[in-house]
């Protein structure tokens, strides 16, 4: 991650001028307002720049490169984040970016910088980024009136930011590099930040009766893992729990997927990545809330040992599942992880994240994730947290009909509805709701919410808060949820 230098405005400006054309100066502009400098104001007017949040204008001029960054009304941190991000996008190709946030509150200034750094993330581990003409600036300076007063807010924003970037890095990793074993190793490294990490594999998974996770991961060279991350916090309370789907690569298994687009399935572990990123954020900002993340890691591969349609699996909860479609594997591994988490940690709330269904994309598109659950207050809190950090959710129902289709003739339940059983020749099945109804069977009476993040785990196109590709969706949302709801006693 690019390191941010926090400086007095005068010093920041001096450094900007010292780098000439290699530096970009990013100035926040309120909606309907104009920059103080008359030349910039004239240019803004000529270019019809209004200052709408997320609007940016690049102005090469006598004083070097200046970028006007719209922050809208500038009241919310979100406005400043959008402005910082949009401004940073225009600074691509420069060695240095200098953000000026004089007169902003500490949180707004921190938001301005956080937006910029969210925008500047790239996954460069696997190519020579030096040849990239549009690389974001490697040096970013935030100029404020009194750096000492902004430092605390920045530390906090930075913690969340690092969580998001961890999640994005993990999602971007291809399946040949990030398998259940190497993913678990990467998670082990989070010990350095004060998280307790347990990795359960092999015989110990068998001993725990994780029949579903073992079946899904059984066809791959690298077997499945259950990784538990724990943050002790300070409060004497049960932890809040995150449960993540971590399918490192999803071929679909015996019910194999079509070839077109299958490469995107390297991101089918985005739920686990988001949960891990949220844990890192909580640890870095020393959250008082005890938290735990349980990540079910598996590769859904085709092999001689792959599980089959028709198999019956015995889960950790003792309930049996009839498999109809080996490509509906996420709900299976979550079934084990949810039941395990509920039983072991008795959490105050349990939130699972998963790139679970194509159906949720048909339902809500790429602009909102679906939230299902059994606790209206928790759902409402998640919705509010999502709105506050620009990771919007929409509530979805679990109706009787959705449970009804999961009745099995020979097991406790089916994993999904029978193919072809939907309306109009079998083409229309509400699979996202069916999946949620399935998961509900494994949470007992725990306060629970399920986020189906298929469709939002990666951006279709560049936006102020990030380039095209992995979004890290969920990290900011969970971090905010914990801050809003779980950092006080009961």
């Amino acid at each position, binding site marked *: 991650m690019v390191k941010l230098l926090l400086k007095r405005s005068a010093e920041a400006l001096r450094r900007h001028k010292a780098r000439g054309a290699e530096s970009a100066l990013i100035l926040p502009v309120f909606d309907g307002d104009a920059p103080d400098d008359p030349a910039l104001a004239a240019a803004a007017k000529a270019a019809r720049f209004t200052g709408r949040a997320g609007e940016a204008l690049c102005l090469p001029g006598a004083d070097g490169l200046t970028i006007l960054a719209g922050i809208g009304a500038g009241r919310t941190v979100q406005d400043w984040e959008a402005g910082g991000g949009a401004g940073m996008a225009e600074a691509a190709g420069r060695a240095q970016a200098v953000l000026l946030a004089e007169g902003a509150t500490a949180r707004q200034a921190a938001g301005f910088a956080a937006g910029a750094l969210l925008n500047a993330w790239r996954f460069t581990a696997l190519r020579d980024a030096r040849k990239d003409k549009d690389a974001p600036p490697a040096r970013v300076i935030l100029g404020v009136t009194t750096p000492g007063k902004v430092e605390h807010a920045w530390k906090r924003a930075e913690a969340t930011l690092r969580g998001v970037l961890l999640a994005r890095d993990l999602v971007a990793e291809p399946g040949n590099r990030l398998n259940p074993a190497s993913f678990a190793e990467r998670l082990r490294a989070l010990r350095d930040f004060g998280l307790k990490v347990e990795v359960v594999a092999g015989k110990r998974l068998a001993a725990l009766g994780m029949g579903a996770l073992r079946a899904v991961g059984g066809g791959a060279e690298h077997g499945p893992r259950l990784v538990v991350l724990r943050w002790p916090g300070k409060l004497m309370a049960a932890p809040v729990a995150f449960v993540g789907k971590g399918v490192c690569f999803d071929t679909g298994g015996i019910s194999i997927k079509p070839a077109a687009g299958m490469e995107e399935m390297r991101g089918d572990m985005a739920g686990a990545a988001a949960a891990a990123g949220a844990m890192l954020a909580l640890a870095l900002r020393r959250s008082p809330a005890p938290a735990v993340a349980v990540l079910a890691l598996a590769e859904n591969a085709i092999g001689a040992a792959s599980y089959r349609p028709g198999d019956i699996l015995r889960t950790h909860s003792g309930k049996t599942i009839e498999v109809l479609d080996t490509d509906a594997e996420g709900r299976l591994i979550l079934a084990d992880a949810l039941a395990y988490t509920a039983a072991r940690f008795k959490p105050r709330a349990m939130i699972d994240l998963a790139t679970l269904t194509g159906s949720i994309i048909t339902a809500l598109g790429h602009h909102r994730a679906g939230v299902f659950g059994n606790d209206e207050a928790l759902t409402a809190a998640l919705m509010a947290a999502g709105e506050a950090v620009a990771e919007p959710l929409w509530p979805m*129902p679990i109706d009787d009909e959705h449970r009804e289709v999961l009745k099995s003739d020979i097991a406790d339940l089916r994993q999904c509805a029978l193919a072809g059983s939907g*309306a109009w020749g079998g083409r229309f*099945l*509400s699979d996202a709701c069916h999946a949620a109804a399935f998961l509900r069977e494994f949470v007992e009476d725990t306060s629970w919410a399920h986020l189906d993040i298929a469709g939002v785990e990666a951006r279709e196109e560049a936006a102020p808060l990030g380039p095209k590709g992995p979004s890290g969706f969920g990290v900011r949302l969970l971090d905010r949820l914990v801050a809003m709801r779980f950092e006080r006693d009961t």
Partner: protein
Amino acid sequence: MPDITFVKSALPRSGALVLLLAEGAPLAGLAKAAEEATGGAVSRGLEAAKFKGSKGQSCTLWAPGAGLAKLVAIGLGKADALDAQGAENAGGSALVAVQQEREAVLAADGLTPALAASCAVGARLRSYRFDRYRTTEKEEDKPKLERIAIASTEVTKAKAAFAPLQAIADGVFLTRDLVSEPPNVLTPTEMAERCKALEKLGVEVEIIGPREMKRLGFGALLGVAQGSAQEPRMVTMKWMGAPKGKKQKPLAFIGKGVTFDTGGISIKPAGGMEDMKWDMAGAGTVIGLMAALAGRKAKADVIGMVGLVENMPSATAQRPGDVVKSYSGQTVEVINTDAEGRLVLADVMWYCQEKYDPRFMVDLATLTGAIIIALGHERAGLFSNDDTLATHVKEAGSAVGEKAWRMPLGDAYDKQIKSDIADMKNVGGRPGGAITAAQFIQRFVNGKPWAHLDIAGTAWSSKDAPTVPKGATAYGVRMLDRMVADHYEG
């Protein structure tokens, strides 16, 4: 279908008797009379059948004595929790239980007159049968019930409570008839003719055809219709029921009436295409709703409008790539000729708001498969630009067992229907397919308070429900009638 009458509470000497029994309550009234007349056979039989009176439970005793051929007990659940829906469901179950008898008495003497009326309308709603095309049905397969007498202690009051419910049931039956009719019979012309039946209820009916549509500039609707040998129609139904001196702007309900939808040049797969005869269910629902409102003399001014077309592939059919000019003046690039319902609604809705300046517009349409993938078959998708209106629709639906689920709208979705060469295109891709359809319609509401019900999943049912036999459900008639009654009368 059987006659429904109300009679004084007395034990019948023959035929069938249905008892409605609350959980844990002692036998009273007619039940007690039956118990005594049969020498205790009723209570012994119920005990042998483990009948407890729980909700939905039923039990049949054959020839229990006292001349009765059949005695049926239906459980009501806890007496103090019995509501109108519970009574309707009991009435529906009772009807099924005695359908093969010629006469039956339904003992509603333990219920209030209002609940007895609910019970009667439940029986009425369940008795619906669409059998006009059966010519060789065996006698033993036909229902034999000629008369069901609702026994009440307050006959006059129960009758009075039933009268408006009967009018609503008539509206429901009209809708079910229209939706059930095959597409070679129910063409746009025929459907428009059937609207005239509403004139005898005091509804003003206006019909316009293609010449007038062309003169008005209904380019979107006519584009859909142009491939069919059947001429399109638009029908306006006016019920002016508001008392003089209490006149307000009218309420408007608009329905999609594609009497058969092949998909046009973007033709649908063969499997399940026969279901497309009910692609006029939105219009059918508006017609039934108008009949219900007029039949019970609702004290409100209401406009019902339906756009009736057939969508056919042919030498004259509209092509993907065509651009049509809608009545609003906005142009539409037709990407997929199977997204035709929104084109029909576009012209009708713009015309409606322009000509009648309604307080609100509610449209109903079997619009997208995406809404089924999102929600399934228990709830319709509800989209709205007005929270109050949306709440009224949703709550009225819950009160009558026609459930809706709010779905999102927003600029991000609206962007998906941007066209390169016209004001908009008629599809926005798979992601959020029902939402982008709603966004399209919203472009034709001209800022009026508006709600859109996507009823593709709820217009037709593949299984029986207590008051809705499988087939055409008439979903929406009772909901919207109830909404008018609760918020817009007097």
